[in-house]
């Protein structure tokens, strides 16, 4: 259906935190891929492993306690999990760039914007002069729609508003033309009007620069408006995957269904919101059975006793729910089937 190349492929990724309280499998056999130039949305509630997934890709897990305990992260068929720190450094910023949720804290408060931008350039363009780097920085600042680019370069982060800082972060991420941009909740900390500006910008840049974007968010609205494809995560697992229209029109997993229904719609007033009972389980607390079973209206005995796999329900649509069993099992899931027997 889509013949774009798969740029980044995550296979059976497993990331565990080894804490005093025991092992927390924050990311538990995740598979997905990101194609050239697409915007892939990852949604899920707080703590479901979105950030851990992205940090695993970047090789920036807080370690200790975090560690990739299984799976592969293939970028152009190169397995990032196998790279040394030194090789990984060449990938970061150059091939994969990342922006974070908190524009307020993601910039170093003690260095000027210019300093931080040119630093990002000079790391990967060792033979550039300061001047070249500065020019490039200024150009990027204009690209992300920041006025007074030259002046801003001399200013410190605290002198900028949240929206401006997030633009700087985007500029910084894109400064070395990465192939992949991971944006971890880039607008959560911003006001709606500013969020709209930033999302607009990201869409524009994606079109212009053809950078593939992995957009992590918990806001279904953002997904609907910005992404082509979406992955829904729940408690460290992917529970549903598919193109945006499909997921929103035909959500198959009860969780996705509930999630979509529980958002108050601004366009028309519902008398009562749909609500999913209970709360998200801590990763690792449920080992057997569907992790959503306890909150699921349709849960059967089977859901508690056996773990569902990610079932391919149509060409581009996968669901982790027994209701959709019987359709063909995706090849990636074989690994999971084998390893969940532990």
């Amino acid at each position: 259906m889509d013949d774009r190349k798969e740029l980044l492929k995550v296979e059976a990724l497993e990331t565990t935190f080894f804490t005093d309280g025991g092992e927390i499998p924050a990311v538990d056999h995740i598979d997905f891929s990101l194609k050239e130039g697409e915007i892939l949305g990852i949604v899920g509630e707080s703590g479901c492993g979105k950030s851990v997934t992205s940090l695993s890709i970047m090789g920036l897990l807080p370690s200790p306690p975090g560690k990739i305990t299984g799976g592969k992260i293939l970028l152009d068929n190169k397995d990032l999990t196998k790279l040394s720190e030194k090789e990984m450094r060449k990938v970061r910023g150059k091939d994969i760039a990342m922006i974070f949720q908190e524009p307020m804290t993601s910039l170093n408060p003690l260095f000027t914007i210019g300093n931080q931008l040119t630093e990002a350039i000079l790391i990967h363009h060792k033979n550039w002069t300061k001047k070249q780097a500065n020019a490039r920085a200024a150009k990027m600042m204009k690209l992300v729609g920041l006025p007074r680019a030259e002046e801003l370069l001399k200013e410190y982060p605290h002198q900028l508003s949240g929206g401006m800082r997030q633009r700087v972060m985007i500029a910084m991420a894109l400064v070395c033309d990465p192939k992949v941009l991971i944006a971890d909740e880039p607008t959560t900390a911003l006001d709606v009007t500013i969020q709209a500006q930033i999302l607009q910008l990201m869409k524009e840049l994606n079109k212009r620069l053809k950078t593939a974007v992995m957009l992590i968010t918990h806001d279904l609205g953002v997904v609907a408006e910005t992404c082509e494809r979406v992955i829904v995560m729940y408690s460290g697992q992917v529970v549903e995957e598919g193109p945006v229209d499909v997921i929103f029109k035909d959500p198959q997993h009860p969780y996705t269904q509930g999630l979509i229904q529980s958002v108050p719609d601004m366009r028309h007033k519902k008398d009562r919101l749909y609500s999913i009972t209970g709360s998200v389980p801590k990763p690792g607390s449920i080992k057997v059975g569907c992790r959503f079973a306890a909150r699921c209206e349709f849960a059967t005995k089977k859901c508690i006793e056996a773990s569902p796999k990610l079932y391919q329900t149509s060409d581009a649509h996968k669901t982790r729910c027994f209701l959709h069993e019987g359709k063909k099992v995706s090849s990636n899931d074989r690994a999971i089937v084998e390893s969940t027997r532990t």
Partner: protein
Amino acid sequence: MSEVVANTTENLTTHKEVGPWKEAWHNFKKSKAAVVGAGIVAFFIILAIFGSWIAPQGVNEQNLSERLMAPSAKHWFGTDDFGRDIFSRVVYGARVSLWVGFSSVIGSVIVGSILGIVAGYYGRWVDTIISRLFDILLAFPSILLAISIVAVLGPSLQNALIAIAIINVPNFGRLIRSKVLSIKQEEYIMSAKAIGMNDFRILFRHILPNSMTPVIVQGTLAIASAIIEAAGLGFLGLGAQAPTPEWGKMLSDARVYLVNAPWTMIFPGLAIMLTVLGFNLMGDGLRDALDPKMKN
């Protein structure tokens, strides 16, 4: 393995009634260093309480014929220039040092808390005056202040203790003041006000208990430094008086024997170091357990 983990997390969130103190204790137990520290402190507390049973010899039992004997089976730590058993004196000394540490810190905590709370809660000119007073006291070279106070009151253990308490007051005062100021901004104080609670109740039910954790942490560490300060004053002859077996005083008495009878200096010195180390370890552990924000 992972089953156990699952159970504990479950327990914490849904089953057992674990109060904040219990949880702190739980965290505390996890740190080996803290447990070792607490063990050392407990050990010295036991020495302090049961010293008279543990010590093989009376603390002031002189025996001039057995002066300055090297450590032996009879006198584990040797004897001093009065022929007194150093081991016994070190054991008794635990009582003195712990007494100084605890009581001076309790004194400064009480006075510092009162001043800090008044300053932090009422603000305005009261705050200005008290804060300036703290500034003044802090700007004093603390040892000189302690020496002056002892000079006024006369050298004795009790007065050294008072001097140490006084020099520590501004530390606790400031700590509490800033804590009160920050807690005042907390939303649960706002919500306490919102339910119509009066200042007094807010202060004593909410602000005070919540400002206590850093005080406990700081207090533990302050006990450690109070013991060292007392030893320093004792060393200058301004602390405990003879024949009190205060470790610092023992060190200063033993100075002249450093070459001829080093054991007279080594054991009291080690005792100070160990006790202080114990309190420091415990304080670090408490900080991690009680005040995760202060955690390193």
